[in-house]
């Protein structure tokens, strides 16, 4: 009997100590993790807009994030946008609710600062104060609007879609006319050497410069990538051989409206990325047009 008590006590004590150790490590590392994620996103965004360490962003470049939620009340669904609005000298947040047909319903001010807005948990608690049960809300997606001075420079869309193995997370940059400025693969778990090549320049950069009309009808062709196109796509790499000036323009216009060349041995990954990008662009264009209509008709003082 004494043995069993000793064993149970021993086990319980060790479990508690273990839990304590793990809990404290979790709390410490969580902060670092969030900070690193934030820095990562910033770097990706600036990279897509063309700014690097040697060519830093101008000081009047501002990034604003807006978040889309789906609010459900019994059987009806409505869209809720968490928008950054101008408040005095700074930026505050507001929840703008509109119905599925694009008609404005209501707006609620939110108690949230821009730093806190990037945290999903903070947004949820701020939303819970205005969206009371039985209404529920579900996070849909986010958009980052880059503004240079008073003009919108670009839209950056983080997105994810299923790839060959698991999900592929990307960051897509569009200009105000929805032409693709760039594509960055942020997370993928595809096969190294095959599907993982989607993060190489010669695949990613094929999406650059595709117009909105072309993207809506984009397909994947299983043909080998022409050498001159490959040299053009990889022209930013360190060891790339330089292409003569006149040639660059010629190559660019020749391949601008062509479909995406699939990766060797990774057709499924290539198709997944192409279809994913296509969906993202089409849906985003539809939604941002509606949002802009509502914003201008109600004169909402949005920061972007």
């Amino acid at each position: 009997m004494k043995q069993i008590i000793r064993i149970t006590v021993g086990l319980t004590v060790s479990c508690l100590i273990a839990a304590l150790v793990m809990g404290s490590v979790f709390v410490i590392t969580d902060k670092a993790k969030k900070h690193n994620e934030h820095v990562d996103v910033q770097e990706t965004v600036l990279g897509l807009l063309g700014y690097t360490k040697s060519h830093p962003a101008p000081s009047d470049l501002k990034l604003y994030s807006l978040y889309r939620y789906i609010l459900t009340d019994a059987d009806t669904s409505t869209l809720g946008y968490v928008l950054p609005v101008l408040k005095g000298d700074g930026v505050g947040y507001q929840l703008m609710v509109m119905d599925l047909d694009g008609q404005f319903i209501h707006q609620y001010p939110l108690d949230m600062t821009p730093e806190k807005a990037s945290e999903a948990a903070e947004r949820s608690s701020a939303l819970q104060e205005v969206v009371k049960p039985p209404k529920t809300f579900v996070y849909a997606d986010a958009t980052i609007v880059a503004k240079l001075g008073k003009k919108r420079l670009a839209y950056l869309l983080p997105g994810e879609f299923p790839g060959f193995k698991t999900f592929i997370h990307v960051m897509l940059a569009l200009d105000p006319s929805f032409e693709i400025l760039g594509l960055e693969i942020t997370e993928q778990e595809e096969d190294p050497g095959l599907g993982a090549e989607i993060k190489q320049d010669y695949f990613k950069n094929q999406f650059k410069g595709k117009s909105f009309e072309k993207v809506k009808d984009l397909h994947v062709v299983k043909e080998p990538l022409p050498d001159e196109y490959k040299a053009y796509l990889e022209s930013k790499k360190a060891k790339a051989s330089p292409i003569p000036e006149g040639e660059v323009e010629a190559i660019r216009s020749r391949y601008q409206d062509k479909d995406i060349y699939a990766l060797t041995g990774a057709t499924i990954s290539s198709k997944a990325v192409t279809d994913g990008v296509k969906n993202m662009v089409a849906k985003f264009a539809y939604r941002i047009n509606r949002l802009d209509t509502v914003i201008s008709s109600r004169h909402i003082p949005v920061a972007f």
Partner: protein
Amino acid sequence: MPATTKTNFELVSNGILNENPIFRLALSMCPAVGISTTVMNGIMLGIAVLFVQVFSSCTIAAIKNYIHPRIRIPTYTLTIATWVTVIDLVLAAYMPAAYKEMGIFVKLIVAFAIITMRLETFACKNSVPASFWDGIGMGFGFMFGMVALGFVRELLGMGTILGYDVLGFRPLLFFVLPAAGFFCVGIMMAMFNYMEIVYNRKRRAR
């Protein structure tokens, strides 16, 4: 097995050569086949295993007198699981890119037979310093094995080492696939066997 009489250096070299976890003891082969596609992966996982091995060995050696013999295995498992969780959280926070490449394998360290076996055969009978050096030896042996495999596979498969383009072209993409992992480990084991046969032959000749 009574407390060891080897010196610290012998403990370490034992882990790397004689009782190399991957090639001699044939334990924890899952990552050896799967993750050794690049040298960087090998180093990262090697560091993770080293960390878990050393800390678990030391913890068990420190509390070996308080563990009731009937609950030995659950205690080992609990210790290993705790340290694996710690290293998992730390890697995810400070090295996210490398962590994502390794996927699920960091969490799987808890199931590596090598660590439990080492705790059972060594740490519970030896002092903390001896366990520490043994842990270091085993960890480095594992890392050495992974790096050797990663080196061969990365060079022959992608033509790069640690990401730097060395060859400028890709000799055989096959080496990056898991099937090649099996082949490489098998061949390297055969090499270790060969070295042992030659060494024994030389010893007998003396």
